């Protein structure tokens, strides 16, 4: 039996399904003879807080300048200590804007030695504002892979999702990263772009979008990057509010569920990722973190963990999971 969600939402999963005429995600899995269980965990995703300089309309965490939740140095020390105990091949720093956590440098310096692959989800406009030169030197010295949000090559689409002037500022920061060697062949400094749709529709095919972005960014601005990832927007937080206010919620949920791809379930990131929030509590993914649904349905602090999470434990699901199983899936 898949654990029940204890969502902050007032409606239960079944009630929300009924309201949207949707089959609950758990039922959809069962109908396909599937279960969502944890595999061998290989990634520690650290959400260092919800403070952000932007108020993106698709943000499932409702991050922004008015949020106060931020990971303390003490919690960062507990996260680093756990990473040393458990040994993760990949560590992925996210937020909010991670750049706005004053202890980000401490985290990078201390976790890099135990993280064979260290990634940071950079908000390019925050990276341009917050201790830029110090952070960039630190990222280069520790071979931090930078994953930068970059939804579209069109200013109107990017700015409508992320705020006025964001495309222009992002281009300036990407130029700086390229000048430092990020995204350039032979430097070993990896720069990836992440594109989320700028509305209530599914993302473009990753391969085709990557080709187009590469051609366009090279031709127009002389920019280069390593990989582009396209992800569906998850109907939680600020994006869910926008969907409801704009009258798109029902049709978007139906679109997601109609695009359910049973083959995507095996590769879902929640099967191999452990997410820790700004307070040090553990979740199966950043979306269950947004929902307040703990790892395997049980509230546990990172300081209580000795090893990697047990493979085979069931992952709590909800209808937001349809966003990760639509099309080629969210891996």
């Amino acid at each position, binding site marked *: 039996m898949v654990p029940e969600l204890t969502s902050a939402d007032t409606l239960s999963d079944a009630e929300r399904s009924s309201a949207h005429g949707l089959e609950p995600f758990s039922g959809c899995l069962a109908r396909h003879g599937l279960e969502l269980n944890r595999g061998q965990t290989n990634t520690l995703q650290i959400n260092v807080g919800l403070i952000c300089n932007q108020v993106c309309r698709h943000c499932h965490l409702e991050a922004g300048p008015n949020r106060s939740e931020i990971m303390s140095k003490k919690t960062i020390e507990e996260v680093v200590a756990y990473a040393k105990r458990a040994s993760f091949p990949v560590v992925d720093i996210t937020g909010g804007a991670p750049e706005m956590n004053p202890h980000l440098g401490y985290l990078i310096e201390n976790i890099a030695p135990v993280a064979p692959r260290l990634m940071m989800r950079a908000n390019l406009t925050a990276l341009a504002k917050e201790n830029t030169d110090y952070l960039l030197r630190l990222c280069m010295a520790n071979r931090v892979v930078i994953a930068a949000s970059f939804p*579209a*090559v*069109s200013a*109107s*689409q990017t700015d409508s999702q992320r705020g006025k002037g964001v495309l222009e500022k992002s281009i300036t920061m990407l130029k700086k990263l390229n000048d430092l060697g990020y995204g350039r062949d032979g430097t070993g400094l990896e720069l990836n772009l992440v*594109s989320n*749709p700028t*509305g209530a*529709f*599914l*993302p*473009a*095919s990753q391969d*085709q*979008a990557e*080709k*187009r972005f590469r051609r366009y960014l090279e031709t127009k601005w002389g920019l280069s990057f390593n990989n582009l990832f396209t992800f569906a927007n998850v109907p939680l937080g600020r994006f869910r509010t926008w969907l409801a206010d704009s009258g798109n919620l029902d049709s978007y949920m139906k679109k997601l569920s109609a695009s359910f791809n049973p083959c995507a379930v095996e590769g879902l990131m929640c099967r191999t990722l452990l997410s820790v929030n700004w307070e040090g509590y553990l979740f199966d993914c950043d979306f269950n973190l947004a929902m307040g649904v703990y790892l395997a349905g049980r509230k546990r602090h990172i300081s209580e963990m000795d090893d990697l999470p047990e493979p085979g434990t069931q992952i709590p699901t909800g209808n937001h999971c349809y966003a990760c199983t639509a099309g080629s899936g969210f891996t």
Partner: protein
Amino acid sequence: MDTYYDPKDLPKFADIGEEAPELAKKFFDYYGAVFAEGELTEREKALIALAVAHAVQCPYCIDAYTQTCLERGASLGEMTEAVHVTTAIRGGASLVHATQMRKIAKKLSM
């Protein structure tokens, strides 16, 4: 029936196969193959389809290919330019017939 065009009917498109399944299969197989990436990308084909949808003024097609264009990464600017192509061809197709009008008028006139 309140209206000839109801957005709820669009998902029923595949139902036309109930009466003539073999023909429907041929059509939908062909349709799928046409829109797969080839010499043109899926995004370019979606923009062409959007332009044609405006030319044939099919509300179902406009709804479907507006969404498809967005899902293939097209911007509203590109989609608007595509519809201007429709408009230019439709307008041009009228205007170019003025050559006939002028030829006939010249023949009849002193």
